[in-house]
C-alpha cells in the first residue's frame, strides 16, 4: 500500500504499470505490424492442422489458415471491442452517476434502486438473452451490448465521488461565485472524479476482454469468419488431441493481453487512488 507521501508520481514508476505498458505496447505492435508480414489471415492456402514451424510459428488451423495471422487480427478486433464497450459503459455510467449524485432526492433514489436491481441480474444472462435472439451479431451491436450491460458499477462510483466532492470547499466556492450547474459538473466534478473512474475503466477493459472471449466461445460474440480469440478456441475444440496448438495460442493471447491491461490498471490504481492499496 502506498500513502500520499510515498505515492508514485506517474504510472511509469510503478513496477506493475511499467510492465503492463510494455506488454500491451508489444501486443499492439504485433497486432499492427504482423498482418503485413504474415500471410493473409483469410487465406486457406496451407496444409490443414500443421504444427508450429518456422513458416507458421503458431501452426495452421483446420481450414489451413495461419494461426498467428488470425491471432494478430483477433487482437485488433478484441481490443477494439473492449475499448469501445468500456467507452460506452463509462459514458452512460458517468452520466447516470452525475445525475444521481448532483440532483439527489427522488432522482437519486430511483436511479440507484434501478442500478442495484440491474446488478442483481447476471450480466451473462442478459447478454445471452439478447444476443441469442439476433440472427446476426454485427460488431457495433456487440460493442453496444457489452457497454450497455457494464455501466452499473461505474454509475455507483461516479455518484459516490460526486457526493464526496459536493461538500468540498471549492465546489461551494464555485457555487457561491454563481457558477452554473454545467460548469460545476464539467470543470470541478468530472476532473476530480477522473482518477477512480480511469482505474475502474481500465480494469473493466480486462473484464470485457474475458467476457467477449467467453461469448465468442459460446458462438454468441464475434461471428466467423471474422477471427476472434474465443471463436478460435471454439473452432479448435474438436482437434484438442491431434492439434493442441489450435486452442493453445489464442488462449495464451487472451491471458497475456488481459494480464497487460490488469497490470496497467494496477499501476494506475497506485498512482491515482492514494487511499486504497
Amino acid at each position, binding site marked *: 500500500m502506498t500513502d500520499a507521501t510515498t505515492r508514485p508520481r506517474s504510472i511509469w514508476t510503478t513496477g506493475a504499470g511499467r510492465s503492463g505498458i510494455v506488454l500491451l505496447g508489444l501486443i499492439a505492435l504485433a497486432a499492427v505490424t504482423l498482418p503485413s508480414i504474415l500471410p493473409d489471415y483469410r487465406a486457406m492456402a496451407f496444409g490443414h492442422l500443421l504444427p508450429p514451424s518456422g513458416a507458421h510459428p503458431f501452426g495452421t488451423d483446420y481450414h489451413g489458415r495461419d494461426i498467428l495471422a488470425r491471432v494478430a487480427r483477433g487482437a485488433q478486433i478484441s481490443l477494439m471491442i473492449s475499448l469501445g464497450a468500456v467507452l460506452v459503459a463509462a459514458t452512460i455510467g458517468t452520466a447516470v452517476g452525475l445525475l444521481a449524485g448532483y440532483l439527489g432526492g427522488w432522482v437519486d433514489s430511483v436511479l440507484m434502486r434501478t442500478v*442495484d436491481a440491474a446488478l442483481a441480474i*447476471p450480466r451473462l444472462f442478459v447478454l445471452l438473452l439478447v444476443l441469442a435472439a439476433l440472427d446476426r451479431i454485427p460488431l457495433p451491436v456487440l460493442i453496444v451490448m457489452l457497454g450497455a450491460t457494464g455501466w452499473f458499477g461505474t454509475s455507483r462510483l461516479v455518484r459516490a465521488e460526486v457526493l464526496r466532492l459536493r461538500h468540498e470547499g471549492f465546489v461551494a466556492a464555485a457555487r457561491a461565485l454563481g457558477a452554473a450547474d454545467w460548469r460545476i459538473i464539467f470543470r470541478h466534478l468530472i476532473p476530480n472524479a477522473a482518477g477512480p473512474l480511469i482505474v475502474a475503466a481500465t480494469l473493466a477493459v480486462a473484464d470485457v476482454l474475458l467476457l467477449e472471449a467467453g461469448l465468442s466461445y459460446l458462438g454468441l460474440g464475434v461471428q466467423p469468419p471474422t477471427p476472434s480469440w474465443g471463436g478460435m478456441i471454439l473452432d479448435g475444440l474438436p482437434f484438442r488431441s491431434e492439434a493442441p496448438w489450435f486452442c493453445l495460442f489464442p488462449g495464451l493471447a487472451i491471458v497475456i493481453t488481459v*494480464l497487460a491491461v490488469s497490470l496497467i490498471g494496477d499501476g494506475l490504481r497506485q498512482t491515482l487512488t492514494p487511499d486504497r492499496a
Partner: protein
Amino acid sequence: MRRLLTRVGQALLTFAIAVTLAFLLMRLTPGSPLPALDEQNRFTPAQEERLRKLYRLDQPIQVQYWEFLQAAFDGNLGPSIRYTGQTVTGLIAARLPATLLLGFTVLLLNFTFGTWLGVWQAVREGSRLDQGLSLLSISLYAIPSFWLGLTLAWLFGLEWRLLPVGGIHDIVMSPNADLGTRTVDLVRHLILPAATLSAVSIAATMRHQRSAMIEALRLDCIRTARSKGLSERQVIFHHAWRNALGPMVTLFGLWLPILATGTVFVESVFNWPGLGLLAAEAIGNRDYPLIMGTTLLSAALVVLGGLIADLLHGMLDPRVQAL
C-alpha cells in the same frame, strides 16, 4: 433494529425491481419458445395457437407478468415449456445439488487459500514473495475460465488419463457400487471443475485480504500487542487478522451468487449438471418460465449476499452500525 428493517426493506425492493426488469427484458427481446419444441418444424398453425394459449403467450405482457407474480407468491414458478410435464421448481431442485457441491467446494478452496496467501503477503509486504504472489494472482485472474478448463481437461483427462473430463459421475459405474466407490468417483469428477473455478477466482480474495491485513497491521493495537511481548503468531492471527475480516465479509457476500450462476462457462466445459448450464439452455430455448426461475434465484442470492455481508459487517465492527 431500525437500520436492520430499512436494509431488509431496501433489499426486498431491489429484488422486486430486478424481477420486473428481468421479465420485461425477457419478453421484449424477440424470439419464441415454440421452435425449441418443434425441431422438425411440423407444427400446424392451429397447434401453435393451442400451445400459445396453453402457456398464456397470447395474453398481453402485463397480464402474463401479473399471473407470474401471483403464482410465484405461492411458490409456483410454472411449468417448463421445453421440458414438457416438468415444473420449473422441480428442474431447479434437480440441478441444485450439483451446483451447491461445486459452489461450496470453490468457496471453501478460494477462501482458505486466498485468505492464507493474502495474510502471508501482507506480513511480508514488499518482499520478493509478496511481489511474486501478486503477479501470480493477477495472472490467474487473466485466464479465461473456459480455456483453463479445456486445457486442464485436455492435459489431465485426454493426455495423461488421470481424471474424468466431464459429467458428475461415471456413466458405466455399476448401479450397486458401494458408498466409498461412489464418493471417490464424485471427488474425481469434482477436481477439475473446482480447481478451474478456484484458480480464476482466487485473485480477488488474495488482493482484498492482503490490503485489509496491511491496514490492520498498522493499527495502534498491533504496536501495543507487540510491545506486550506477544508472539508474532498471536499478533498476526489474534489481533491483526480479526481487524482485517470486514472486507472479507463483503467479498463473501459478492461471491455467494457463484453458488447459483457464476459457473456457466465451467459447467458447460465440464458438462457439469448445474444451474448455470440449465439457465443458459433455458435462455437458448426461450423457455420463459425456466428463465424467470433461474434469474429469480440468482437475483435473490445477489441481494441476499449483499444483505448478509452488510449485517455481518455491522456485527464485526460496531462502528458501522452508527452510520
